[in-house]
């Protein structure tokens, strides 16, 4: 499958250009404290991101849906496709948990018979992707998945299958993860300060053919010399044996969907951007993103055009 569009929302702000600036800045990113009593540094999405006028039509969207929609719309920009053959896949490990807790809060404050239907509707995992489909008016399949080990890599594998079998002509594949006070509380009690959690949404427009770089997912690292990016600091899933490669966890924060952040990074490297901490640039191919969870790993391989 070929990559034809990228969209990013993360601690560095909204947009691939913002990510580029963020990853070229020699100053280390500053996580902001989040939480109720005990505070934990979190690489949070800046609040001004959520004031984007593109979000005005989705007035009832929660934070999770808003970041998802912004990233998806950026990846979608410039696409021309039969909308009945555009698919959407959204992966997450923990989903819109801030909204789930908001709904439970409602239940406890007002009782089961006076809960908010809007908050309930938003707390469902399927809400965010539904907003993408409504906004771009697509009618192809929409698939939401929630797994802890390799949610984004599974999503990419499925997108590849949809394109190969001709179910879709274009697939918008993305991953979103958010943080909340309740999660911060649980993380700090379980792991202390070991992790700086991150949040963000990362989308990729994929087509079967095209001029962009090709992507595939496999279970082992190819032998060829290449550029390696690694995601083994995924929250709570950090392996004893770290995969070889450059980690951008200081910029992404610990994310189960870290592979998605790194795929956006890979695209910047492919375009020739020299990023902080990297010696390789776009001359190297393939670029590989290795995610590990326990003893398992998944590798996203990005190859430049085959000449």
């Amino acid at each position: 499958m070929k990559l034809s569009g990228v969209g990013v929302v993360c601690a560095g702000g909204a947009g691939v250009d913002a990510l580029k600036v963020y990853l070229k800045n020699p100053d280390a990113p500053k996580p902001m404290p989040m939480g109720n009593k005990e505070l934990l540094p979190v690489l949070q999405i800046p609040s001004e991101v959520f004031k984007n006028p593109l979000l005005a039509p989705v007035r009832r969207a929660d934070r999770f849906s808003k970041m998802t929609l912004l990233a998806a719309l950026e990846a979608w920009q410039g696409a021309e496709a039969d909308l009945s053959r555009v698919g959407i896949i959204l992966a997450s490990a923990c989903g819109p948990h801030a909204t789930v807790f908001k709904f439970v809060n409602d239940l406890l404050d007002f009782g089961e018979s006076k809960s908010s239907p809007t908050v309930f509707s938003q707390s469902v995992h399927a809400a965010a992707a539904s907003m993408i489909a409504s906004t771009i008016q697509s009618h192809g399949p929409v698939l939401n998945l929630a797994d802890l080990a390799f949610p984004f890599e599974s999503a990419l594998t499925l997108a590849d299958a949809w394109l190969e079998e001709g179910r879709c002509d274009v697939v918008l594949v993305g991953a979103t993860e958010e943080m909340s006070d309740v999660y911060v509380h649980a993380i700090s009690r379980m792991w202390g300060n070991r992790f700086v959690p991150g949040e963000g949404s990362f989308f990729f427009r994929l087509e079967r053919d095209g001029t962009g770089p090709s992507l595939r997912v496999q279970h082992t690292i190819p032998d060829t010399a290449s550029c390696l990016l690694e995601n083994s600091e995924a929250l709570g899933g950090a392996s004893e044996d770290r995969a070889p490669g450059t980690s951008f966890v200081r910029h992404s924060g610990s994310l189960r969907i870290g592979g998605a952040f790194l795929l956006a990074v890979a695209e910047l490297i492919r375009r020739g951007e020299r990023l902080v901490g990297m010696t390789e640039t776009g001359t190297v191919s393939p670029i590989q993103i290795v995610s590990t969870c326990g003893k398992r790993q998944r590798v996203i391989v990005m190859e430049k055009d085959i000449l």
Partner: protein
Amino acid sequence: MRGKVILSGLGVLTAAGDDIASSLVTFQGMVRPPVVNHSLEGLEQTFPMFAVQGKGIPDVDRTYHLALRATRQALVDAGLEQMPPGFRLGVCVGTTVACQLNDIPFYRSYRETGQPPLEPVYRFLLGSLAERLADAVGTEGPVMTVVNACSSGTDAVGVACSWLNANLCDAVIVGGADELSKIPSSGFWSLSVKSPALCKPFDRDRQGLNLGEGAGIAILERKASAIQRGRSTNLEVAGFGAAADGYHLTAPHPEGFGIELAIRAALADAGIQPEQIDFVNAHGTATRENDRIEGHALARVFGSSVRVVSTKGYTGHTLGAAGGVELVFTALALREGWIPANMGFENQDEQIPFSPLTAVTPLVRDYAISTSLAFGGNNAAVVLHRVKEGA
């Protein structure tokens, strides 16, 4: 569908029965299972809920245990309790409750004391529903938990077919599971779609849905693989289709645009015409909107003489499990040669162009279709085929 995909095993657990055999007894007898009359805090009226009767399913971690029980039934049915060496088994299941950390006592304790017990978090971090089932069964194949709200189980079938078409595995544990939970109970009440009476799918006087719980699991397998194991069956997944309404967060498209697209895509994938379908296992939640919109779409595609049943009259709306449960019930109808009756129907709604089947009805054709419409506008349909001997 590229290569042949068969259903080599089935398992189910709902209020209608703790397994296949007892579910068939319920359907033959046209008996509504007993319901629990559940009240919400602050309301006098109660709501019928369809609970699983089965003993030995704990309340804690209930969705996982429902899924595991149905999975074990299906694996035994498929002769896969012991997997052949090198057998690649995937897991793709849907849920709406088990994918969230939504433990109310945990959150209440967090609010009140600031130091809640962390057991619910540890349980959540054991893995997603599909990941935990894969661990329990001992497989390293592809794994995915689908969280597409009410169409999750049916969408899981689509994913499984894509995996099998791509030769990522030989078979897939597919379906869905969900337990009764206060969160959707309260949420659906606030959306004004819950009925205080037993649900009446497609009926003129229907007042909304009843919630239910359960798990429906099938083993989808490449036919060549099943033949090699000596466990082939004549039940095939002939086609799958999915489409988004692209319309609204909670309301379905008023013309049923997405569900019609999904049904037509499934028929095209199966390479058949609408008249080859014997019956539809409809989503049929018994809400005013769903049944009217789905009813119109079914009539447009299949004509007003379409044979329709909603099995939710026996199980309630089992949310993430519904697509899996209904896949199993549709397969059973093809296997047994008869279609269950649509419970609760008394009077035709003049806004719906047909009446559902109100008696146990013999099958006359060899294809059936199961449909699902979800919150957020996802629509999915799967066509099943009973292959005649010698075909």
